[in-house]
């Protein structure tokens, strides 16, 4: 592997990893904010318990997103200095705004929420969480504006060989970003929905398994009590409500990702036709959508690929909204790209030993074809599972089946898989460009950059390999730690997030009711939350 390939692996690994934590942060943050709002309005104890329990898991995960996020910002300059020089005038602004307008809000108000249970009035405490969560949505917006400019450069002019921003409005309302932002937020909510569903299922199943909850003569659940702190009747309400919220969120978010994804697809056919053709492994012009293609997807001339099952008209529908428009396949697009952007990389030292090589315009089709299908498949699976979960829990608890419980727990991974597959598809589908050309005739089609020209010329392959290994090992170790802690706190149930339940279960509500509280009470000297 040379420096370029190592740098690409590093960017891929660190980004996919970072984006394991981020959707859970965004999605779970929104859900916890809604739950705390419900507690604030109704004062019902199960909502307080849900806020504390899901809030605890939210924080265990949040910190990993924070820690791995710094790598992302530094990495552009460290490993991709030529890219940074080329795009800095337009790409740096959304990154700086993300820090200034979103990260500050997110980190400061989350600190207030974590530590402010006693210091702040309940309404202000709740507002802090909402502000932090809205901050995280804004951070998604800014970073996607930056990414969308790489997919579809707008609002710039080429001056002295570099794109210079001339129209900030165009950059910040790039239609690519406007559909990618809701797609990403819905994707994050899908993760949170499956997370709630799976974990709540597990607790309900365990309550039945331990004989706490039983089924009455009418087949409805009869919630029971156990001596273990936190496992009382309210506990049942905690989990069944969490499960239903999770299932509903999962279904709504799948519908949301499907609608926004369709809009994205139609834009992509115009903006990056090669990416969409490669997603379909559509070699020849046509209208059919491949359900299954076999053969050597990696072969570059496309002739070995056979579409085994193909539905006519669907590809045209995805691209244009009708069933008859011919969609250009990979083969005819190659010629078009060669005519527009050259057949060989220029003889410029910036390309290193790749200077003068033939340009490979077709992305790795195994990745684009299967990435696209995994994204849709995992997402759809989670939505169907959520619908089934609502049906299976109609009597107020889950079936006693251990197998179903395991399915619900491992189902948590499906939307994570869909998110990762979607990003891998869209980033690898953009290759060989790091900044894809905007083919719009009125646009600026000379603004593009090959990935081969983007890496830092002064950084050696050895340095890149060092960081690749170090970061991968650190990330792997921390993933084990995070998952272990999550599992520990999930098993601990509500009492793990609310030690006060174990000490004085009777006081639970009095102690933290939204309307009561206030300074001057005994025990007020002890911090409500402490590291």
């Amino acid at each position, binding site marked *: 592997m040379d420096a370029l390939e190592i740098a690409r692996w590093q960017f891929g690994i660190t980004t996919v990893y970072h984006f394991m934590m981020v959707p859970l942060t965004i999605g779970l943050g929104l859900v916890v904010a809604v739950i705390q709002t419900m507690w604030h309005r109704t004062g019902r104890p199960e909502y307080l318990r849900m806020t504390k329990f899901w809030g605890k898991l939210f924080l*265990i995960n949040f910190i990993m997103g924070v820690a791995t996020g710094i*790598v992302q910002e530094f990495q552009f*300059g460290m490993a991709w200095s*030529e890219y940074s020089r080329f795009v800095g005038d337009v790409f740096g602004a959304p*990154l700086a705004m993300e820090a200034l307008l979103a990260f500050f809000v997110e980190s400061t108000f989350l600190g207030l929420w974590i530590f402010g249970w006693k210091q702040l009035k309940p309404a202000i405490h709740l507002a802090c969480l909402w502000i932090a969560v809205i901050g995280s949505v804004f951070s998604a917006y800014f970073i996607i504006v930056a990414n969308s400019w790489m997919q579809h450069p707008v609002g710039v002019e080429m001056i002295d060989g570099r794109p210079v921003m001339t129209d900030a409005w165009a950059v910040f309302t790039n239609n690519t970003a406007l559909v990618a932002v809701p797609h990403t937020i819905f994707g994050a909510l899908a993760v949170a929905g499956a997370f709630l569903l799976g974990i709540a299922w597990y607790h309900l199943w365990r309550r039945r398994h331990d004989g706490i909850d039983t089924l009455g003569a009418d087949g409805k659940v009869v919630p029971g009590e156990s001596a273990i702190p936190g496992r009382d009747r309210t506990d049942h309400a905690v989990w069944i409500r969490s499960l239903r919220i999770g299932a509903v969120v999962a279904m709504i978010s799948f519908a949301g990702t499907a609608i926004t994804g369709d809009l994205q697809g139609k834009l992509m056919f115009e903006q990056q036709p090669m990416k969409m053709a490669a997603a379909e492994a559509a070699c020849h012009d046509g209208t059919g959508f491949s359900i299954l293609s076999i053969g050597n997807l990696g072969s570059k001339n496309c002739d070995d690929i056979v579409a085994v099952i193909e539905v006519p008209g669907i590809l045209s529908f995805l691209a244009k909204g009708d069933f008859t428009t011919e969609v250009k396949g990979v083969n005819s697009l190659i010629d078009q790209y060669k005519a527009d952007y050259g057949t060989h990389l220029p003889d410029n030292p910036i390309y290193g030993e790749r200077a003068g090589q033939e340009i490979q315009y077709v992305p790795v089709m195994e990745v684009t074809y299967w990435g696209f299908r995994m994204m849709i498949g995992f997402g759809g699976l989670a939505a169907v599972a959520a619908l089934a979960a609502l049906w299976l829990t109609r009597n107020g608890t889950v079936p006693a089946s251990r197998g179903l419980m395991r399915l619900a727990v491992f189902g948590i991974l499906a939307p994570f898989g869909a998110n990762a597959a979607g990003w891998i598809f869209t980033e690898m589908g953009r290759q060989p460009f790091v900044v894809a050309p905007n083919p719009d005739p009125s646009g600026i089609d000379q603004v593009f950059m090959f990935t081969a020209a983007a890496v830092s010329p002064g950084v*050696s392959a050895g340095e890149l390999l060092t960081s690749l290994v170090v970061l991968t090992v650190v990330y792997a170790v921390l993933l084990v730690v995070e998952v272990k802690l999550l599992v520990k706190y999930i098993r601990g149930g509500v009492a793990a997030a609310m030690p006060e339940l174990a000490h004085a279960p009777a006081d639970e509500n009095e102690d933290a009711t939204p309307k009561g509280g206030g300074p001057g009470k005994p025990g007020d000297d002890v*911090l409500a939350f402490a590291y």
Partner: protein
Amino acid sequence: MELLPTIWFIAIAVLWTGYLFLEGFDLGVGMLMKGFARNNTERRVLLNTIGPVWDGNEVWLLTAGGATFAAFPLWYASLFSALYLPLLLVLVALIFRAVAFEYRGKVDNPRWRARWDWAISLGSLLAAFGVGAALGLTTTGLPLNANGDREGGPFAWFSAYAVLGGLAVVGFSLLHGLAFLALKTDGDVRHRARKWFVRLLPVLLLPIAGWAVSLQLLSGEAWTVAAVAAAVVAAVLAWNFARTGAEGRAFLSLGTFLLLGSASIFGAAFPVVLPSTLNPEFNLTVSNASSSDYTLGLMTVVACIGLPLVLAYQAWTYWVFRRRVSGDHIPEAHSFLPAIAAKALAPKD
């Protein structure tokens, strides 16, 4: 001299100074987790003085980095790629440190806590050193060629200035951390922090003073030399306030020292943002490394709205958590039984 690039040079100097001012004390408190804190309760007192604020403080680093990318892409690209390995060290240190804050108390086990304590204190030390080295080198120079790329291999950045800059930020952060603890804690920790502050001030400020003075010798101007002199006065005041028990004034005087020291350093470096040690013609300057006026204008508007807001709500956070923390405020560590036995996911009952 161009107006907008100059404004953005000042803005970036302000962001770095804000970072050193705010994260300075939480890096210092982090380092003091080992050596200063004597037992678990004291360590938890230390942690809870910075608990609600450290993450917000760290965003100043991200903002300084992001603003450099937006306003001076060539500075950002050359500095970050030239310092590849030291910045990797900073990243790993910051990752472990951040995770340690959150995870340390999540398992009630002394070995678990001891490991994260090391992560916090070593992570804080290495992050401070690395950031200091990077800042030191951006004012004194790196072996950059005409394209702004580093010549001479992965360690070509290494020089006495890297060490000086690293020690400067470590020393300042430690002292700032002590001043912060004297201000924010009570009881034994408070008094010990004040005692250490008075005793260690001359040693801990020596490297940062060395850095500021070297820059005056390299490219100082009358007003930057005056700033150094004023900074020395502020340091003496800080020392005297601490000695007489005026902790708040000691903290503010040390903060003033940082502002003046930072002004003298960035002021002396101006208009060069990153000198090349190979050839002065390759120097990156405020004019040749900056973004277009359009981008800088946009960023100016955003910063004029965003920065005052940030200062306002961060100040409010410090007000909300203004109370001193002592051992009495620390809740008992709680160990909890799993509500659910570990075997639940196992194949059979």
